């Protein structure tokens, strides 16, 4: 079995500008933030991002990495809820968005995973979703009439085919088997099934034997044929919630506050983003000891 360990920068080295990238997790929960931070340090640009958005999408917007986004929502999950950089990118018209119902994101990933061009779904009909897609979203008439002879017209949710998927789980082995230890798997398995290249960061890398003993088998949502590269990144989901640590609420507020002026953002960026992942984690530990 192959050893798929890589560094964060190795992963980013395999990505290209213009790619469509799916980012696992949900809102401000179990986001592959260490991988996102590595993208921020790179010269990658012109990305299309797919996901249940949180500060991952916000941070990528802060650095002008995003051209287009496919999402059902963007939320920080706790007050102040709205991501400041996503809001700025939207209000300045800096990105094109394909907003949709949350269930449509899952549906599009399922279509991609099944190598289908689309899957039908009711959600989206009658709503602004059709307008958001500017003609990119079509409907399909059911070939099966109902008992009364009428047929349903449904949204033909297109496959959300991903060039690459980035996910973060709590525990994994060097081959790409991995488990979540929280209460919700989110959709990380689906992202990996929908992508050409699949990259996993884990808080803790263990031997396979330890992995299968550490969690109920059902929690091992990724197996090695679903993963191309594994990065050990302790605290790699920070500041979002992971299974083994909570969302860093104080730091998340710091992120939102820092975005308020160019000066405070420059300071935040210099301290936390223009640095290596190790330096980031050290700066976060220093922040945690501060008063207030």
């Amino acid at each position, binding site marked *: 079995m192959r050893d798929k360990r890589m560094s964060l920068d190795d992963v980013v080295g395999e990505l290209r500008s213009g790619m469509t990238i799916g980012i696992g997790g949900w809102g401000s929960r179990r986001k592959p933030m260490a991988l996102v931070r590595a993208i921020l340090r790179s010269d990658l640009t012109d990305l299309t991002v797919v996901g249940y958005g949180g500060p991952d999408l916000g941070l990528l917007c802060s650095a002008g990495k995003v051209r287009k986004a496919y999402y059902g929502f963007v939320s920080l999950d706790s007050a102040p809820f709205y991501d400041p950089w996503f809001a700025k990118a939207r209000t300045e018209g800096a990105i094109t968005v394909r*907003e949709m119902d949350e269930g449509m994101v899952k549906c599009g990933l399922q279509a991609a995973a099944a190598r289908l061009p689309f899957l039908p779904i009711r959600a989206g009909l*009658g709503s602004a979703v059709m307008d958001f897609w500017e003609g990119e979203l079509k409907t399909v008439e059911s070939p099966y009439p109902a008992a009364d002879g*009428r047929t349903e017209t449904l949204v033909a949710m297109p496959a959300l085919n991903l060039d690459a998927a980035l996910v973060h789980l709590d525990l994994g082995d060097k081959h790409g088997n991995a488990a979540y230890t929280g209460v919700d798997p989110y959709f990380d398995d689906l992202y990996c099934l929908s992508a050409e290249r699949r990259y996993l960061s884990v808080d803790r890398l263990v031997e396979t034997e330890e992995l299968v003993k550490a969690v109920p088998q059902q929690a091992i949502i990724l197996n090695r044929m679903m993963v191309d590269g594994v990065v050990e990144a302790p605290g790699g989901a920070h500041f979002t919630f992971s299974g083994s640590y909570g969302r860093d609420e104080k730091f998340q507020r710091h992120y939102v506050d820092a975005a308020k002026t160019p000066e405070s953002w420059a300071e935040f960026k210099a301290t936390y983003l223009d640095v290596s992942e190790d330096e980031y984690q050290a700066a976060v530990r220093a922040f945690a000891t501060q008063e207030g």
Partner: protein
Amino acid sequence: MTETTTSTRAEVCVVACAEIFRGAGEIMASPMSPVTTIGARLARLTFEPDLLLSDGEALYLAETPALGAKAPIEGWIPFSKVFDVVASGRRHVVMGANQIDKYGNQNLSAFGPLQRPTRQMFGVRGAPGNTINHATSYWVPKHNRRVFCEQVDIVSGIGYDKVDPANPAFRFHHLHRVVSNLGVFDFGGPDHTMRALSLHPGVGADEVAENTAFEIAGLGEAGETRLPTEEELRIIRTVLDPKGIRDKEVAA
């Protein structure tokens, strides 16, 4: 003087939110704020004992705890499975609304044009799927003309004027109630427009009209929202919300 004459506006709202679930049976109730959560839990502890309630994360609660308290669980409902429940229709959600119009179109996405809004909020979230699949109600803690507006900027949850009668895919659309800090409404007005069912004690039709940008049917005829019973008040105050979180959402 009975105990019930001392109910606060927040407590009246909690009971109105509980009433949203009357007759719902064995379905998943999905309240989205403290007052609606207290309401759903009150419904389960009184007249709708079969409701399924989640902890707001991924677990079904077997018992009915106070807001923020832990309780034994009876099952697992991760986000992925929520969408299956949504499509199956066995759910009634009570969402918020940054804007809502007379047909029940709701917006929680953004204000302004789609691709360049003036203010960005959450995105449409589950509103398009909820409103086309199962019963949906709305809770607005601050009833004013900005929320109850002439026309929403971005249709997230769909209103009755968006239903295509020729397309059976819309057959599950059902907006049940809108509860605000001023009253209880449904869409039984002309052409499925908003209609007043009851106004909360102390609220006049003029106050509602002044705070609504469109005409609400039946404002003059609406009765008074029922007060909590003594037992309901006891449950709200001592069992479900001993810390008085409801009062932060609705001013007395």
